[in-house]
């Protein structure tokens, strides 16, 4: 027992553990914020898994073709936004089932990425690589958090900075109020002159852009190449994290970091040569997500109009 505690404290005290944690957390933060914006406006976006794939692929492809890294990020965001527009047209304009449309967007974005990858690189057997974002070593001298931040790239800082920015947007601006209102009572918003369809469409596009960025982090920062299975359920985990976060940006950050810390810890346990098959460790993130859903299920205060299509003039 003492041994275990010592190991645990050693781990929690080590900078490398927190470096790994933030790195795992970054795509989850971006993705969770993306889902959060969509759901606050009343739209479930299960397209996230595929949009992350598309963001990872297109961001990487742009850089591979000579664009600089930030252009790659922009491309990933725009591609994410384009799939968001598709999801919005289906669910907000045409009001089809948000569940099924989201799955459709995921299947489409995933298969299109794979198709485009094969068209672009018909012959390669090992994935081509790029020069990815470098860690911000200049931050190493900051007190306390310096060593942790020095192991991160600009995209991680961007993800963290987006949390207060989105919180401000949601709670302190007219746009944020309109966004929350269309997710709670769209008819009321319409009655006060807010164009529900436009706000929801904008929210889904904006949220999907963040999902695109979440994917791009993996190819432009965490790794330097694109693999078919690289998202591997991260998108679904973000959907669970939003419930865990009660649709609040601050709690979304907390949830993503907490989750990533668990993931980083299980990775260490696995590397330390645990007695259990490695698959058990790999299952943990998924089981943990389900657990988070169960824990929060009773007290979850869903946006009232989540998954409820709004058709003008229908009561």
């Amino acid at each position: 027992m003492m041994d275990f505690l010592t190991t645990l404290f050693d781990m929690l005290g080590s900078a490398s553990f927190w470096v790994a944690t933030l790195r795992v957390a970054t795509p989850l933060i971006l993705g969770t914020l993306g889902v959060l914006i969509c759901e606050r406006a009343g739209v479930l976006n299960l397209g996230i898994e595929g949009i992350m794939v598309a963001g990872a692929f297109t961001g990487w492809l742009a850089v591979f073709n000579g664009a600089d890294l930030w252009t790659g990020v922009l491309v990933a965001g725009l591609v994410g936004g384009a799939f968001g527009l598709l999801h919005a047209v289906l669910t907000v304009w045409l009001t089809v089932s948000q569940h099924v449309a989201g799955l459709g967007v995921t299947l489409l974005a995933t298969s299109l990425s794979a198709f485009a990858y094969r068209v672009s690189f018909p012959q390669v057997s090992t994935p081509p690589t790029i020069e990815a974002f470098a860690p911000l070593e200049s931050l190493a001298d900051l007190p306390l958090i310096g060593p942790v931040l020095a192991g991160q790239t600009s995209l991680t800082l961007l993800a963290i900075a987006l949390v207060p920015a989105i919180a401000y947007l949601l709670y302190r601006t007219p746009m944020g109020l309109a966004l929350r209102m269309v997710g709670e009572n769209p008819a009321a918003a319409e009655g006060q002159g807010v164009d529900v369809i436009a706000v929801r469409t904008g929210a889904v596009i904006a949220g999907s852009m963040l999902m695109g960025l979440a994917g791009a982090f993996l190819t432009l920062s965490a790794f330097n190449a694109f693999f078919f299975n690289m998202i591997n359920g991260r998108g679904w985990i973000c959907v669970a994290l939003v419930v865990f976060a009660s649709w609040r940006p601050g709690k979304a950050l907390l949830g993503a970091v907490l989750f990533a810390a668990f993931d980083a810890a299980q990775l260490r346990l696995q590397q330390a040569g645990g007695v259990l098959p490695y698959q058990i460790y790999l299952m943990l993130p998924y089981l943990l997500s389900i657990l988070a859903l169960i824990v929060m299920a009773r007290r979850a205060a869903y946006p009232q109009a989540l998954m409820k299509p709004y058709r003008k003039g229908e009561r």
Partner: protein
Amino acid sequence: MRLESRTEYSRRAMLFAPIVAILVTLAVCALLVAWAGAPVGQTYALLFDGAFGSRFAFAETLTRATPLILTGLAAAVAFRARLFNIGAEGQLYLGALAAVAVGGMHGGSTFDLPLPLLSALMIAAGAAAGALWLLGPAWMKLKLGVDEVVTTLLLNFVALLLVSMMLDGPMKDPLAMGWPQSVALDPELEFSRLIERSRVHSGLLMAVGLAILMWLIERFTTFGFALRAVGANNRAAAFAGLPVGRTVLLCALLSGALAGLAGVGEVAGRASYVTTDMSPGYGYAGIVIAMLAGLHPLGVLLAALFVAAVQVGADSMSRVVGVPNFIADVIVATALLTMLVATLLTRYRIRWGRA
């Protein structure tokens, strides 16, 4: 733009919806084919030829359709009760695993039983494994209000890891030279061939039979009525005294079992052992098939044939012209989206301009 509810309702429109959806899909995907630098007409012709052009091609399509019918039925019956089971992929793998566990371990002699009984036990075990895997999410949906889409999706990853763990451990094939595959099924338990010199197996008969059975259940039984009522309006169903919880759980068992049977069919009819890549997304394709079929069990037969044809045809086509076979996945995904829109348009009419 606004949507206006159609007051009349037309059976014909509902029959035309999938046809229009598929035509639109093929038109959209033609752009991708052109982008890949291949002649569109020839590519589609090759695709059709690869699926139906020869006895061998058609047999391959039927073989491919077998698991797709079952995962399509699994999704259709679940969606009918508005239980969004997206976990057919995981349920399929567990069904396959359970089949091998019964019929493959120790050379199939785990249970000292006569062959027909052992065969029945193998099928039942596969169905049960799939059913139980869905029971958890269904229960959580009913009792805790946890969205079943996310839980079933996440459990797909868990299921695959579980399979991988078993293939590394107790069910590892000692003769596979390090390949991650399970022990093989006792050859006597394998499904018989339906067509000489092809891979079409009697699992196809089972799938078609189950489709007809599902149709009879939905159409003519009180359970079928409860299923439809719960899916369309569960509050009204509860008010009328229908057992909502029991119906959803039964539906989950049925749906999971159908997906599990898809796994049994793949093991007993085709591969004879389990690998972690035995399904190229049959579970997810099942959702598309169910939607294309308008959730109608008999429609699933046609929709599964369409998806199977696209997949088999694309494989064959991509060997001739330089269009990656991923075009099949794109076609299937696009068909899902166009079908969603087509179905909506059978109920609503789009009015441009303001109300």
